[in-house]
């Protein structure tokens, strides 16, 4: 039976809130969502193209967290466990989009593939648009690894933990992703 009334304070630690949520206390789960939604939104924003998609993907992540709460054993901090689910859900979303490479239209960018002054004359916002456009052309696994490594600044070890890939695999994929991104930005991708 689900309940909206809770004896748990929102200041409780994560494990108590998880126990409450597993026991059917919806407000305990809501407290967890409030605590971690910013982190989830920040990550999901790297893989989505609109606010609507961002909201949908963030909801999908928290629904998966809810479905799997019983499997949380507390071996690692809840935040790490949630991050793993978030990364895998984002990866699944990227794979679904693989035939749908809609990104920012090229003519809306203040840049053209092969532009020699690529990093000099672009503002931070423009650089972000260019990078997101380039990353949008990559394969799902390349997109995931380069986002986690270059934009979220995770280490190889952290990415291995988040994705379930080996560290060697992460390094190889990151190297390939960078190479592919360079080719795209050089404008030589289709040559």
């Amino acid at each position, binding site marked *: 039976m689900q309940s909206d009334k809770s004896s748990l304070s929102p200041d409780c630690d994560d494990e108590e809130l998880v126990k409450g949520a597993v026991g059917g206390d919806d407000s305990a789960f809501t407290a967890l*969502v409030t605590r971690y939604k910013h982190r989830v939104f920040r990550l999901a924003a790297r893989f989505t193209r609109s606010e609507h998609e961002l909201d949908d993907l963030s909801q999908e992540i928290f*629904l998966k967290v809810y479905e799997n709460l019983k499997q949380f054993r507390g071996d690692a901090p809840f935040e790490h466990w949630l991050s793993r689910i978030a990364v895998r859900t984002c990866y699944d979303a990227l794979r679904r989009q693989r035939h749908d490479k809609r990104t920012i239209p090229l003519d809306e960018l203040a840049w053209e593939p092969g532009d020699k002054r690529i990093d000099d004359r672009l503002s931070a916002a423009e650089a972000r648009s260019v990078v997101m456009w380039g990353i949008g052309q990559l394969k799902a696994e390349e997109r995931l690894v380069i986002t986690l490594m270059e*934009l979220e600044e995770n280490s190889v070890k952290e990415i291995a933990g988040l994705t379930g890939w080996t560290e060697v695999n992460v390094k190889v994929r990151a190297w390939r992703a960078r190479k592919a991104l360079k080719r795209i930005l050089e*404008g030589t991708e289709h040559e």
Partner: protein
Amino acid sequence: MNNLSDDCLDRLLAKARGDLRKDSLREDGFEGRLMTRLRENRRQESPWYLWAWRAVPLLSAMIIMLVTVSGVQNSALGSDLSHALTGGYEESVLVSYYTGE
């Protein structure tokens, strides 16, 4: 063709990293929307025993029908049997009469 150096790519990525998207407006009221969707999912995935309760009238009707049909069949079989037995007795009496046994 322009060769983009690793250094140049690093600078571009660093610049892009510095321009984090502002907090999404979608974060406001997110919990409400999420819980609405969660409740909707729960409604759609109602447990099997709720469906079992809903099937009770149908199952009862099927049981009543089966009992009725088997009752009718049993009574029909019973009358056929007595008829067969009676018919057989009458036939043996006739045979005894004609053969003088």
